[in-house]
């Protein structure tokens, strides 16, 4: 029987761009280019490796986001995923993590799954809580923050490297897995992969198809409210010295003056 893998990915503003907030205090997506969140590339990579090991597997990439978010899906398809689902709806603008997890959970259930894989966090919000919330909503085991993952005979195993210990985990499918950037370098799409991706199916779903009311999501339906966003004042220019043999001593003098020594 085919192993159904759903990889959740996010389209995020490029961190090397000049990111800022729009007037409604949501992330301004117009002024900065977007791309597939780098940490999600590791999730796609692990899905591809798990599918390679399985007799028969199908990888669906799923995203919730505006029109441009299709770019993130195309990237994942060109890496080797089989098909894509794009949940797109004007009412989704400004949805927070609780609302997004609701949309993703409904879409995952509608798509059908044995294994959900995500990155450890998005590179924009960097909360790192979505995988745990998805497991809660779907009512399946969470096997999160894995630096190594393996799926065999309906069981997922993996290694979670925490602050104080490294844990070996095990759960039965279906399950939600998240992987860290230590799980293995993500592959670059090949030219063949990029060409093939153009022919792969991308389905578009809206809130109605997922039986979600508009007031459960979006800025108005959000479970959190941002009251203000201020750019951090630029640091006042520091003292920069060139080392001409005494740089270490001069630095010690500075640290002593700041009472660190």
């Amino acid at each position, binding site marked *: 029987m085919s192993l159904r893998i759903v990889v959740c990915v996010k389209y995020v503003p490029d*961190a090397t761009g000049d990111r*800022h*907030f729009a007037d409604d*205090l949501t992330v301004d997506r117009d002024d900065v280019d977007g791309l597939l969140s780098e940490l999600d590339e590791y999730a796609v990579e692990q899905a591809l490796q798990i599918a390679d090991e399985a007799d028969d597997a199908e990888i669906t990439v799923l995203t919730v986001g505006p029109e441009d978010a299709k770019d993130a899906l195309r990237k994942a398809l060109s890496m080797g995923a089989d098909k894509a689902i794009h949940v797109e709806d004007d009412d989704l603008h400004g949805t*927070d*993590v*609780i609302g997004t997890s609701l949309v993703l959970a409904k879409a995952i259930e509608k798509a059908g799954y044995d294994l959900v894989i995500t990155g450890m966090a998005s590179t*924009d919000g*960097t*909360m*790192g*809580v979505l*995988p*745990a*919330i998805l*497991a*809660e909503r779907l*009512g*399946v085991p*969470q*096997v*999160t923050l894995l630096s190594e993952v393996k799926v065999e005979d309906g069981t997922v*195993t993996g290694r*979670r490297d925490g*602050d104080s*210990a490294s*844990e*070996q*985990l*095990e*759960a039965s499918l279906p399950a939600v897995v998240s992987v*860290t*950037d*230590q799980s293995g370098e993500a592959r670059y799409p090949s030219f063949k992969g990029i060409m093939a991706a153009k022919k792969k199916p991308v389905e578009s779903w809206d809130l109605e198809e997922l039986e979600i009311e508009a007031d459960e999501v979006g800025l108005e339906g*959000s*479970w*959190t*409210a941002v*009251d203000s*966003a201020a*750019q*951090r004042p630029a*640091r006042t220019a*520091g*003292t*920069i*010295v*060139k*080392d001409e*043999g*005494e*740089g*270490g*001593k001069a*630095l*010690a003098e*500075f*640290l002593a003056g*700041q009472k*660190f020594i």
Partner: protein
Amino acid sequence: MAEVLVYVDHVDGAVRKPTLELLTLARRIGEPVALALGAGAADTAAVLAEHGAVKVLTADAPEFTEYLVVPKVDALQAAYDAVSPAAVLVPSSAEGKEIAARLAVRIGSGIITDAIDLEAGDEGPVATQAAFAASFTTKSRVSKGTPVITVKPNSAPVEAAPAAGAVEALAVTFGALATGTKVVSRTPRESTGRPELTEAAIVVSGGRGVNGAENFHIIEELADSLGAAVGASRAAVDAGWYPHSNQVGQTGKSVSPQLYIASGISGAIQHRAGMQTSKTIVAINKDAEAPIFDLVDYGVVGDLFAVVPQLTEEIKARKG
């Protein structure tokens, strides 16, 4: 006065500093009630009382160590039901965030993670967060349900505020999901004797310029002279020179110490995201154009192999 539920991070009864900081913040918005789970939970009571906990709920069961995260969520939910708090505060560790997030969904509440400050507001607690690699500061609230907020280490001072701290055993019923993910084995991380990276007052980090695992002792010796934690940039970790558990940056740990010393680190956005809120920033780099110099209070353009050992010697000499 409204009660605020505080989740306690401890190791066999020894309460970790971020939890004591949480108690300081909790007192700004109500009366702290602490929840301590696992072996040694009751041993946390004295220090929690010393820092303002009016009550300490405790529970221990094999499920907390044998299965991942969910048993702790069941316990936190039991405490939530027992206390009906005005807010729930949890330390922003990887596990703490997962526990908090699952509770939030269960009780129909919003969640704010990685707060760096917290104050009382007209419509509930207001959390300050750093956004976009700490280039922005936002103020947010939970607008639905009971605020669930996770707070980063070093966000508040540890203050003594003696309170009753009466210990009460909490009854926990584990749900069907509690045993979903089995912890088959656990290998404790070897202790270096140095402070924990995210909690340290001083962090000394090395990057690409350190040029090999065999040279990292230079960074470690500087750290030890200052009683500091050791960090590493992603480049150094990816090259295999230092463990991932010490990585500072967007995909590693986010640190906010009193003093951050970056050696041989250029200051890519990935790294800046993890250290930009440090109070005082110092960099040593031979490339005068390195973006890290835009952030520093003091920078030395020079070879770290000359500057860092000289600095270490000078610190040792000054400390006598």
